Structure formats: C-alpha cells, structure tokens
C-alpha cells in the first residue's frame, strides 16, 4: 500500500523496536507528492509502496 512515511530513525535500533510513522492522508485527494509533508520536509518523509506494519503510529501533519 502506497503511503507517506516518516523516514526511519535508526537511533538505538540495536535490540529495540524502531518507531514507524505514517502520515495521515485519508482525507488527501491530491497526489501524495503534493502533500505538504513531502513538499515542505522531503528530508523527513518519503513515499513508499510497502505494507504498513502493525502498530504504526500516525502523524497528522499540521504545520
């Protein structure tokens, strides 16, 4: 499933679970490339077409 995710932060990865954040885009009708998170902070977010892992946390992007 294609979605916008916050780029993975591998801090303290060893032995721990890494947070996986998905940008909330349910109400977004334009292409994901035009979503503010990608437009404003492409260094933090990326569009991927992967399965969203269970218990992923959500970000309601609101600047």
């Amino acid at each position, binding site marked *: 499933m294609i979605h916008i995710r*916050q780029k*993975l*932060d*591998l*801090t*303290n*990865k060893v032995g*721990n*679970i*890494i*947070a996986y*954040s998905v940008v*909330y885009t349910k109400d977004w009708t334009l292409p994901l490339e035009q979503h503010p*998170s990608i437009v*404003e*902070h492409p260094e*933090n977010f990326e569009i991927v077409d992967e399965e969203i892992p269970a*218990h992923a*946390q*959500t*970000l*309601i*992007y*609101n*600047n």
Partner: protein
Amino acid sequence: MEMYKKILIAILLCFGGKAIAQPSQYTPMTANGYQMKRVKVDSTLHIPSFCGVPTLRGSTSSMGALAIDTCNNKLYKYNTEFEWTEVGSSDFIDTIFRRSDSVFAKKNGITLFQFKDSVGGGGPGTTPTLQEVLTAGSTVTSNNIITGTTTTRIRQLGSGIKSASLSIDTTQIALVNQSTNTNNSFLWLNPNTAQLSAKSNALDQTNYVGNGLSSILQFTRIPSTSRSLGVDVNGPFMQSNAGQFYFPLTLGTTGQILKLTSPTQLAWADDSSGGSSIDTTSLSNRIDSKIDSLKRSSDSVYAYKNGQWNFQFKDSVGGGSSVANDTAKVVIAKVHNATGTTLQRGEVVYLSGANGDVASVKRANNKQDSTSSKTFGIVRRNIAAGDTGYITTQGQIEKLNLGAFTSGDILWLDSIDGQFTNVVPVAPYHSVFLGVVERANNGNGLMYVKPQNGYELGELHDVQINGKVNNQILVYSDTQKVWKNRSAYTVIDTTKLQQKSLPAYSIMGNNTNAAANPTAQIFKQFGNQTYSDSITFTGTLNPSGAINHSFRWSQIGNLVTLHLTLTFASNGTISQVGIEIPDGLPIPILPTGLIANNDIICYGTGFMVSTTTGVSTVFSKVFLRQNTGLTNDYEIVINQGIASTYRIMNATIQYFAQ
C-alpha cells in the same frame, strides 16, 4: 297274712327266751377221744395248727389263744396286747428277775445285771464291762463298737465326722477319715517298728515306704514315693529322702551354729574363727566399706570413717543440720517383668499393671499413648521374664551403652521397644523426655534419668475431646468450663461467611449504606505491560527511533486507574498525541450529555518532555475521550497547545467503567 306274722313272732320269742334262761355248764366227757372242730383231746391236746402265723376266727379275739405253726415248728400265743407272738423267740430274754434292788436278765444260762430299781442301793451285780457287753454280742448301730477276729474298730457313723475310724489289730493301728480321703490313704502306726506312715489302702501295706531303718519314725507323702521325712529315734538325725537332708537332733555346745558340713548334712559347729566356723577375717576384708564409728549429734547421725565424720541421716526428732546432705540422689523401684523376655539393662519401661504386690512393666515406645504415657524408668540390671528387679525412675544410672551419643545429648523415648534416641520425636509420635547423657561411652555410659511424659491435648484438665474428625476446632463452653472439639462449620456463622473462596478479580465489600454481608467487588491490578496500540501525533514530525512504551492499570469496583508512558529515542515536533486505551481495559461509562464522539469524558494528569530529567514548563492537558475511529473506541489525549520537540509522554487518568 297278718296272722302268719304274729305266729312267727311268737315262735321267735319262745326260742329267744329259752336261750337266755338256760344256765352255763360243761358236759363231762367220760370216755377217751373227743374231737371237736380243730380241737382233739385224747391222751394229748391237739391245739389248732397253721402253716405260718396263726389267724383268729369269730369273736374270740378278747380271749387268750394258742396255735402251732407246723410248717416252721413254732408255737404261738395270743393276747389282745401283743396279738400273736412266738413262744420262746430268740429276741427275748429267757427270764427277768429282781434281786435286792437290781433287776437281772437271764438268757442262754447267763445272768446279767440290767438296772437298779427305784429303791437304789445296788445289789451283788455290777455295771457290765465293755468286754462283757461285747462278749454278750451287744452292738450299737449309731456310735458303734465293732469287734472282729483280727481287727477292733471304733467308728463314728452319726453326724459330725462320718466314716472316720480307728482300727486296731495285732500289727497296726490305723486312723482314717474315709469320707474326705479320696485315695483311701490313712495314717498308720506300726506297733512293731514304731513307724508312723501314711498308706494308700486301708490295711494294705504294699504301698508302705520302707526306709530300712527299724527305728525311724517316718512321715511319707502319699501318693508320691519320692518325698518323706523321717526321724531316727535312736540316732542323731532327722532325715529326708529328697536330697538326703540330715538335721542333727542332738544338741550342740553353747555358741555353736548350724553349718552345712557336707552337701547333704547339717552339723553343729563353732561360730568363731578356725576350723569349720565362719571366716570372719576374710569376710571383714571383703567389707571394705564398713564404718569405724557412729555418733548422734543434735538431731542427726554421723559416721566416722578415715578420720572424718560424715552426716548419714536425721533421727526421728528432725530439725536439720547445716551440713546435712539428706537429698536422695537416685530413686529406684522394684518391678515385675511382665514381658516374655529378659529386660536388658538400659531398656526403657512403662507401667503396665501389677503382679504379686509389685508394679509390672513392659518395654516402652513412642508410637502410641498406651506404651508411652506411663513411661516409668530405665532398667538397672537384667530382669528375667516373670522375675522382679529394679529400675531407676530418677537419678544417675551407669554402665550403659551410650557410645552412639554425645555427652549432653537430650534423650527421648524411641519408636523401637525399650530404646531411646537423641532425635526429638515429631507428632504423631509421642514426645517423652527421658534424661541426658552425662558420659557417652559403650559399656560405661552414664545417664541422668528423669522421665517426663508429654500430654495429649485431650488429657489437659480443662479439655474434653470426643470423636475427633477433620476440620474440627477447639471451642470453650462457659457452662461446662471446658474446651471441646466442634466442627468449624457448626461454630462459625457461615451466613456471615458466604464463601470460603472469592471469584477471580474480586474482593469482598459492603457496597451498601448499612451493615450487610459483604459481596464480591471487582478488584484488578496489573503490572507493567508493553503498550502496542494506536498512537496518533499532531505536528510536523513524529518522535522516532527506538521506542519503549508501557502501561499499568488497576480497577477497584468501577474505578479504573491507568498510567501510561511513551518514550522514543528521538524528539519529534508535535503539539498533541492521542493514545488509544490499551486492549483489555474496561469500557468507560459515558457521563450524561457527553455521549457524542470526541466528547471529553474526564481529565487526568500528564506531560510531554524532551529529556528524561527535564521538567515540563508547559501545562499539559490530559483527557479521555470517545474516538469511534479507533478499535477500542476511546483514547487519552495529551495536548500541549503549541508544537514543540518531545520524545517522552506520560499520562495518568481515572475513569469509571461501565
């Protein structure tokens, strides 16, 4: 007809008047040979004859009569007093006559004095001797004297001692009580040998036990032939044939004592030293504990030995002494061994009864009350089965096999018969304290004995136990003043203890406004758990990196308390976070009027910070709200107002569950 009757009466009167008027007379019979019916008279008078005792006919019974029994050649006479009696019977004396003042009887040509008449004074006759009576054939059927050709016997056949007799003949005098003597034995004196013996058959000498000594007065036990005691009337001994025991009958000299001079003979001997007398020197040497002197001082008795006076005992006056040592050190008891085997030294015994005025004992063990509660003491010396001996009930006992123990060991009655152990018994074995090991040694062990029997609970004075069963407890009866065993369920008011066990996740409580039986209330408390439900941040960058999310919660009644912590390795830039209530938490109850989605149900406390030690300077708003977009429908929100960098979130909230 009437005329005939008158004629007949006239005729009868004529005959009757003639018979009365005719005088009595005898008609002379001048010729020889007259015969009447049953009487003949000629040269002789033939009287009536019978075969056997005569009988009378007609009305002549008032007159005397004679008749002869021709069959038995006997002459009978008759009178009205004696009726028919034989003339000249041997039962009768021939004649009786009076001479001077005495009456004599004559029979068979012998005249015998019978008795004096009432005038008295006696006559030439004298009272007959016993011999005269016996010679005359006198017999007495009650207290009789019976003579025979070889034996004269005096015997009593009446009341009292019956069938007892004294028999005398030319060779012996026998005394016997035949009514009580079941084997017909009797005491027999041999006139020829002066021997007095007991025999088994009257006048039968075959069982006589001869001793070969003509001058022995011998007593023999009947029927056994192996026991007799004889006295040599001419010799110096009294002899027994059982073991050949001789006892001197001759007197010794002054000061002599009887001494066993041979295995079979006692003899008089001097009692001083030397010869066959007592060896008092060696006896004295053997008695090395003798004291030198005794004295009484004040109320006590002292003994002098080895130059020192030692207190012995108080006299009857009592009162004590400052140096007195009148305390018994060892208490012993004489007992009877009631077991079938020898009681060994050192075995533990208990009181089992009594025998022959002595207490009986058996081996004790701690397996049951009957063999332990009456533990008495320790055997001092071996006691053979059925014999008597001594045990120590308190004090020292020595020469025990105590090598397996250590000096100072406390000894208890063991489960093995008669044994003790240094291991304290554990119930149901009975704890009986026996004493302490004073010296641990095999063969020379020393133990201080002081048995102390334990008590069962039911043996206490104020406890009454009847029929013990499971789940009983002791309760006190104020009326009977004793503790008694009762079922716990009959004593406790189970209506106030509705359950012995509680449902899962519950406590008992009274959730009413009055006294009432408690009811089960919800009680849950969980430790730290990993949080893994939905988290939604609002901002421009989520906290990231390694996560460590946890929560814990509890519930008492309907009140739920939740404490939740989220930690990330890296800060995010956020203003709010929504945290779905964890799986398993009770569903909150919605306050009236706050039932719409996103309505805030209640507030809590919490914060968001960027470091573990930093203190938040921003007031955080924490609340619980309904969010039907979530799986669990409710979330906790921490709102900071403006976005900032945070990586740690913490919230505590209480709510009421449905």
